[in-house]
């Protein structure tokens, strides 16, 4: 079993901590482990904290948080060793960090699956910051590495901002939101629960999902979903391949396919923004 890791990046004030708290509040049974860089005040809303130790904060719902400082590897190993193991690790990077570098380091550990890089952009200020002589190139690097760009504070955004962000983050899904409120499955994928069936709608009216049961090579399908322009923010599910059942994931342009137990039920859930998820084209993949 591999432990999925998501890196949450974005410049100061873009809403990284707000997003983390939103995900913790809506973890829906997922045991999340949050790793934060040491800069900043306590990153977890007080009402979510159950107990605070020297280096680990216990959070409602079986979640935890710790800071990684200069040693991300040690912190990740600590998370891997937790019993019971977390379902998903979120790494909240500092505002000037390059998230791809953090993910590359996380990927060195055995038992880690790089799930994706989520970069938040402040709808009201990202374009100005992008042109700032000091931090503009840092923000450009962050965006260019994103699998999902969360256009936060979307109420403050100019109408063409999503398109502009898409041009700075090629291959990434651009998802508008306010105060980090996005469906947890769009950011972290579906939890360990069974895959639902059919074409269904989310409580959040912005999103749409579709379950497909494709045939063929799992890795090829994963790549197709990631690169095919179907408007898929995330996809996860099982399909039959030549070597047996495979579990596939895609996040933005990241994709993976790994062997899965024979008892898994076939079906791949594709999640995308309503109006952008190309339901008809996805159905043709089946």
């Amino acid at each position, binding site marked *: 079993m591999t432990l999925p890791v998501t890196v949450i990046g974005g*410049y100061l*004030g873009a809403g990284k901590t707000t997003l983390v708290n939103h995900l913790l509040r809506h973890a829906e049974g997922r045991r999340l482990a949050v790793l934060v860089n*040491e800069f900043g005040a306590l990153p977890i809303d007080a009402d979510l904290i159950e107990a605070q130790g020297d280096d680990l904060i216990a959070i409602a719902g079986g979640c935890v948080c710790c800071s990684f400082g200069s*040693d991300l*590897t040690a912190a990740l190993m600590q998370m891997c060793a937790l019993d019971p193991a977390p379902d998903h690790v979120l790494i909240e990077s500092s505002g000037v960090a390059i998230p791809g*570098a953090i993910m*590359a*380091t996380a990927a*060195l550990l055995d038992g880690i699956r790089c799930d994706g890089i989520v970069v938040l952009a402040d709808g009201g200020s990202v374009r100005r910051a992008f042109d700032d002589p000091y*931090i503009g190139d840092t923000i450009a690097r962050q965006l260019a590495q994103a699998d999902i760009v969360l256009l936060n504070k979307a109420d403050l955004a100019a109408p063409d901002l999503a398109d502009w962000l898409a041009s700075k983050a090629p291959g990434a899904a651009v998802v508008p939101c306010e105060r980090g409120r996005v469906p947890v499955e769009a950011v972290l994928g579906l939890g360990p629960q069974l895959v639902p069936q059919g074409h269904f709608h989310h409580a959040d009216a912005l999103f749409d999902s579709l379950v497909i049961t494709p045939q063929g090579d799992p890795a090829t399908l994963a790549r197709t979903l990631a690169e095919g322009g179907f408007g898929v923010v995330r996809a996860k599910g099982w399909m039959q391949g030549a070597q047996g059942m495979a579990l596939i994931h895609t996040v933005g342009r990241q994709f993976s396919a790994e062997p899965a137990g024979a008892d898994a039920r076939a079906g791949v859930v594709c999640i995308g923004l309503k109006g952008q998820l190309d339901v008809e084209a996805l159905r043709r993949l089946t």
Partner: protein
Amino acid sequence: MSGITVYPARSILTMNPARPRATHVAVREGRILGAGTLEELAGWGDYTLDDRFADKVLMPGFVEGHAHTSEGSLWRNTYLGWFDRMDPAGKTWSGLKTIDAVLDRLREAEAQLPADAPLSAWGLDPIYMDNQRVNRAQLDSVSATRPIGIIHASGHILNVNTKALELAGLMKPGINHPAIPLGSDGLPTGELKGPEVMTPVGPHVGFDRSMMDCDEQGLRDFARLCVRTGVTTVTDLASRLEPETVEMMLRVTGEDSYPARVVPLRFFLGLPPKELVAEVVRLKALATDRCRLGRIKVVADGSIQGFSARLKWPGYYNGAPNGLWYCAPEQMAEIYENALAAGIQVHTHTNGDQATELALDTLGPALLKHPRRDHRFTLQHCQLADTAQFRRMRTLGMCVNLFANHHFYWGDEHYRLTVGPERATRMNACRTALAEGVPLAIHSDAPVTPLGPLFTAWAAVNRITASGRVQGEHEHIAVDDALWAITMGAAYTLHLDGEVGSIETGKRADFAVLEEDPTKVDKMALKDVPVWGTVQGGRVFPASKL
């Protein structure tokens, strides 16, 4: 008994412009009663004449304004550098000029280790060996069963053998990381290029502490290097200052035999700005004479030779992308504002000129919000600053501590590769700083380069690079200016100029005891002036008796 000791000396360079030379200095209660003639000093009352320095030259104890006490800890590992270097015990290790010589020294060290110990080494710098890389096969030839790790001189690259990679779980195909080069076999070559990939392996090769923090023996060993180089006040420029470190530093420096005054700066990460400043206010109250807690170190960018420094347009000479910020502009502003409000001094590492620009742009508005005279916020390294930036430093009341040693060790690299001839020629612009009226110190950044203020002064005076070229004659400074920079200049950047840095009435009895007069030797021999030892707070520390 008045407890007055009068030391006659061959000559005393006081750094007191009103009385630049003296023949005698009188000491009482660890402080200087006065410097002058014996007749003048006799007026203070009965004295003991101590003529042990009668044939020596005394200077104010040197002040190293940018070093790290971790050098003391590093010496417990095997030294592999290109240049000769003296260890805390006074032994000079010869520089190694070939990879074979490096491997031979590793073999010698390996043979003396107990069975279960890793082999840890430091100081390797392949740029002087045509950038030949050390690979794990070579280290495996030293030992295939014992983990081996070598930290480069820069501190940013670690070479390890196969055993170490295995222990860290990195001896596997399929690694995709920009800081881990792979060989033709698809496996790591054993070179780990950056702190983020060094940390997983470090503990297996004996580097389980960060380069930042000293331990008790390291702090003691570092002080021995201070005595050997004439240093009586030394900064520990970026320490985490965890409670147990603070307790240890206060205890060790408080021992009667501890020969140096240590000025530890609290590294800025780990706390939000407001809490950081509050913590440093708390630490300041714990300060003692020999452990001057109460200052902050901010790091704005990376290093120029590592291409992680932030440069203004047009950036790196070889076209490398601009470097990294280690501190966001908003974070720097918040630290500056809170520190100014609380009266806490901040030293900021800026290597690239864009990082320097940011610090200047940030301090101006912060001072409007929290006006404070005499803040002496200091830019550390500040290697690429241009003349306009030095003018802004002066206007804002800033000090600068330039990395004169760097010009010798990496000046050729900067000329050829990183910033190109024009900017390399004006790097570490000591003369411009003085001409524009910016209070100036110069430094070693030990362990990055060896501690040794006379060498640092030599580097600033001569601007010779490792290949022997003079790089930037326009920025030469006079010997007197360089000697000022390593005494009064550095003391000023620490608000200690009223206590140390010159030999005059009322100041601490801190002396560098030299065998020759640095103003009387050829300026190319400045670095070779032998150091007999120091006097610190009136206590005599001969280097030969350490």
